[in-house]
C-alpha cells in the first residue's frame, strides 16, 4: 500500500448493545438521571434523533495537496513536512511517514524538526488547493443532501436524515456516498480518501472522524458513552486550553464530561461549555450550508471563419439553447453573459451583456446579443466562440398574461425590465436611467440619476420636502452646466435683452462641502416669449447665468 493512502473506514453499525463493548465502565448516561454532577450529567439527552450527521475527514490533507501540486516532478526521498508559512514561528502541520519515522511530530516548531532531521524538506501549505479538494468532495456530497458544509481545513459535514428515504436507507446511502468518492477521478488521482463517521450531532461525528475511530451512531442516547474514549485533541480547541486540561489530568472526552459544569464554565468560558453541549446534542448546532457556485461555460469551434454578425448569432444558437437548458433545469436565470470570440491572430474580442433581471430564455438572450453585437467591431473573422454565464440567481416563475400589456389595464410583466435591457445592450448601461429628487436647495443637487425602479416605489421625498415653493418658480428643464450670459449695463442678454418677470429668489448654500453657491434667481422672458430661469452671482463677479428653461 502507498504510504500516503488510507483505508476507507466506514464502520458497520454496532450490533451489540449500545456502549457495551466500548466503555462500559464509564457509561454514566441513563434515561432517568441522578442529580446533575458533570457537564454530561444533565439527564437524558433532550434531543431525539432529529438529525444525523456524516462527517468526512481527510487525513493528511496538506500533504496530499502538496503531493498533487508536484505530481510529475521528481519526488525527492527526503522526509517531507508541511508548515504554515503565515506563522511567524512556523510549526509543522503535517509530516509524511519518513519524517514521522525520524521522530518529527505535528505541532513541533520547524527549528526542532530540523534539529532532528537536518535534510528535512519543508514546504509551505497550499491552502487554495486544499480548499479546492474539499470543495470537490463537497460537490459529491451535495448530490446526497443540500445540507453540506465544509469544516476548515479538512472536514466536511453532511446532514442526511431527510435524504434517507430518498436513497433507500442509511446503509444504501453510505454505500453510494463511498462509491461516489471512490469513482471521482480527481480525488482518486490525489489519493484523497476521506474517513466517514456517522453521529447524531455534527461535532461528535467530526471528533470521531478526526480520531480515526469507528463511529456509526444513530441513537443519541448512546452518543456520550461512545465519545468517552476519544482523545481531547479531536475537539481542536486552542493548544493552550488543551495544555491546561492536560495539566488537570483530562485526556479524553469522557474525562472532560466528568468535570462540573459551573467550574468548567468559569475556567474555560461559556463558549467551551456550549461546544460541549453541541457535541452531546444538548444545544442546537446550525451549520451554514455550502452554496455551490455554478456557472455556465460553453465553447464552439467553427468549421470556417465567420465575419458576419448575423451568422455569428446563428452559430451561437446551439450554445444559447444549451444555456437555456442548463438554467431551466436549475430554475435559475443569469444577469450577466460574456461572449468571447477567438480570432486567428488578434487577441480575443469579448463583450458582456448585463441584464436588469434574471433571464433564461435563449430567444431573448439572442435578441439582446444582436443589439450588443451591432456596435462590436471584430478585428478579424471569428474562429471560435465562447459563452460564459454569470452567477445564477433566482428567477421567479410567472405565467404569461392573457392580454398584452397596456390593454384593459393589464399589468406589464417582463416588458418593463426587458426594454431597459434592450436599450442598454445597444447604448450602454449609462445611457438609460431614472430620476429621483433630493431634498436640497441647490438646484443642481436637487435631483440625481437613479437606477430605474422596476416596481413602483413610494417616494421618500415628497414634493413638499423639495423646498419648491410655488411649482411655477422651478423650471422643467435644467441645464447641465449653467451658461454664462452676456450683459449690458448690468442687464442680462440672451438673443436680445431679457425682461425680468419675477425674483430675486436667493439661494445660498453649500459652504460646507466646497460647492458653495451664492445666487439670486430670476424668471426672465426672452424676445420670443420663452421663460428662462437665470441667476446672478452676488459675490464679487456679479455675472449672469442661464440655469433653466420653463419648458
Amino acid at each position, binding site marked *: 500500500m502507498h504510504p500516503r493512502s488510507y483505508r476507507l473506514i466506514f464502520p458497520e453499525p454496532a450490533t451489540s448493545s449500545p456502549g457495551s463493548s466500548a466503555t462500559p465502565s464509564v457509561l454514566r448516561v441513563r434515561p432517568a438521571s441522578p442529580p446533575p454532577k458533570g457537564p454530561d450529567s444533565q439527564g437524558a439527552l433532550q434531543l431525539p434523533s432529529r438529525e444525523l450527521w456524516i462527517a468526512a475527514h481527510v487525513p493528511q490533507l496538506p500533504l496530499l495537496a502538496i503531493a498533487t501540486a508536484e505530481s510529475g516532478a521528481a519526488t525527492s526521498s527526503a522526509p517531507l513536512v508541511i508548515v504554515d508559512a503565515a506563522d511567524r514561528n512556523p510549526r509543522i502541520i503535517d509530516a509524511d511517514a519518513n519524517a514521522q519515522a525520524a521522530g518529527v511530530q505535528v505541532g513541533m516548531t520547524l527549528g526542532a524538526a530540523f534539529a532532528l532531521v537536518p535534510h528535512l524538506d519543508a514546504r509551505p501549505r497550499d491552502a487554495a488547493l486544499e480548499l479546492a479538494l474539499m470543495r470537490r468532495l463537497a460537490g459529491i456530497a451535495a448530490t446526497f443532501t443540500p445540507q453540506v458544509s465544509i469544516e476548515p481545513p479538512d472536514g466536511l459535514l453532511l446532514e442526511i436524515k431527510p435524504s434517507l428515504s430518498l436513497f433507500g436507507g442509511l446503509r444504501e446511502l453510505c454505500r453510494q456516498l463511498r462509491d461516489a468518492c471512490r469513482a471521482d477521478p480527481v480525488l482518486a488521482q490525489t489519493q484523497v480518501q476521506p474517513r466517514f463517521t456517522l453521529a447524531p450531532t455534527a461535532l461528535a461525528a467530526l471528533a470521531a472522524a478526526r480520531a480515526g475511530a469507528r463511529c456509526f451512531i444513530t441513537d443519541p442516547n448512546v452518543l456520550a458513552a461512545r465519545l468517552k474514549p476519544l482523545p481531547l485533541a479531536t475537539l481542536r480547541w486552542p493548544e493552550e486550553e488543551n495544555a491546561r486540561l492536560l495539566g488537570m489530568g483530562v485526556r479524553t472526552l469522557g474525562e472532560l464530561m466528568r468535570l462540573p459544569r459551573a467550574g468548567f464554565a468559569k475556567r474555560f468560558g461559556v463558549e467551551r461549555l456550549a461546544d460541549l453541549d453541541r457535541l452531546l446534542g444538548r444545544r442546537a448546532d446550525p451549520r451554514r450550508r455550502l452554496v455551490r457556485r455554478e456557472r455556465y461555460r460553453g465553447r464552439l469551434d467553427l468549421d470556417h471563419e465567420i465575419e458576419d454578425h448575423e451568422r455569428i448569432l446563428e452559430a451561437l444558437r446551439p450554445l444559447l439553447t444549451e444555456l437555456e437548458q442548463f438554467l431551466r433545469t436549475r430554475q435559475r436565470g443569469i444577469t450577466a453573459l460574456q461572449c468571447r470570440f477567438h480570432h486567428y491572430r488578434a487577441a480575443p474580442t469579448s463583450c458582456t451583456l448585463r441584464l436588469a433581471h434574471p433571464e433564461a430564455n435563449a430567444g431573448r438572450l439572442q435578441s439582446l446579443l444582436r443589439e450588443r453585437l451591432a456596435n462590436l467591431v471584430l478585428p478579424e473573422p471569428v474562429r471560435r466562440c465562447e459563452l460564459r454565464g454569470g452567477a445564477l440567481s433566482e428567477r421567479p416563475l410567472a405565467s404569461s398574461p392573457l392580454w398584452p400589456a397596456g390593454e384593459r389595464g393589464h399589468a406589464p410583466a417582463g416588458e418593463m425590465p426587458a426594454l431597459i435591457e*434592450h436599450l442598454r445592450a445597444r447604448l450602454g448601461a449609462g445611457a438609460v436611467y431614472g*430620476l429621483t429628487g433630493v431634498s436640497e436647495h441647490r438646484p443642481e443637487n436637487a435631483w440625481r440619476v437613479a437606477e430605474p425602479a422596476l416596481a413602483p416605489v413610494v417616494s421618500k421625498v415628497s414634493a413638499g420636502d423639495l423646498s419648491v415653493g410655488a*411649482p411655477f418658480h422651478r423650471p422643467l428643464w435644467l441645464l447641465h452646466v449653467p451658461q454664462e450670459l452676456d450683459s449690458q449695463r448690468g442687464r442680462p442678454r440672451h438673443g436680445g435683452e431679457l425682461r425680468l418677470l419675477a425674483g430675486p429668489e436667493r439661494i445660498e448654500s453649500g459652504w460646507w462641502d466646497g460647492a458653495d453657491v451664492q445666487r439670486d434667481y430670476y424668471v426672465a422672458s426672452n424676445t420670443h416669449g420663452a421663460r428662462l430661469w437665470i441667476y446672478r452671482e452676488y459675490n464679487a463677479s456679479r455675472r449672469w447665468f442661464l440655469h433653466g428653461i*420653463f419648458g
Partner: protein
Amino acid sequence: MPETHAKQLEELLAHPSVWRGRSRAAVETFPTGFAALDAGLPGGGWPRHGLIEILTPQPGAGELYLLLPALAALSRLTPARWCTWVSPPHEPFAPALMAHGVALDRMLIVRTHLPLWAQEQALRSGACEVALAWLPRASPRAIRRLQLAAEQGRALGVLYRSRAFASDPSPAMLRVLLEPLADAGRHGARVSLLKSRGGSRDPIELEWAAAAA
C-alpha cells in the same frame, strides 16, 4: 331589410380604425388637462395610442407644460408603465416634475445618438405608456414606422421637432404647432392643429399658470 343593413353599416363605420373625411374619428382618448384643448381635439383629448408630433420654434415654448397634466395622469396609473424621454435637450428637472404631480419612478431617460431606434424600441416594447422623443430630422417612412410601433405597443408616442419641419409631410395622426404667447404678462402658448382627424381649425390659446395651479 334596409334598416338593418344601414344599422350594420353604421356599426362598421363606428369602428376606431375607420376614419371618414370630415367626421371625428372615434379614437380612444384621455383628457389633456386643458378644457379648451380638449374641446378642440378630435375625441376630446390626446389619443391613448398612436403618434403625435409637436412642433416648436425653440425649446422652452411650453412643450412640456402642454403635456404635463397628461404625464402626471399616465405616470400615476396603476399599474403604470414607463414614460420614456428619448434624447431630451436638457435634463428634466426632477423637483419641478414632482411638484406637478409626475411620479418620478416611472420616468426613464434615454441618452442616445440613435433617437429613432430608441423611440421605436420604446414604443414597440409595450412597456411604455408614453414615449417622448426629440428628433432632429426624420423621414416620413421613419415616422410611419414609429406610428406602427406605437399602435403595436399600445403607447402614445410624442415627437418633438422644430417648426421648420411643419411643411414636411408626416404620417403622425396629430400634428400640433406650439408658439409661445408674445404677451409677456401671460405665460402660455398658442396651439394650432396642423393635422388632425377632425379637430378644430382655429388656434387655441392656453395658459400654463392655470395648469400649474
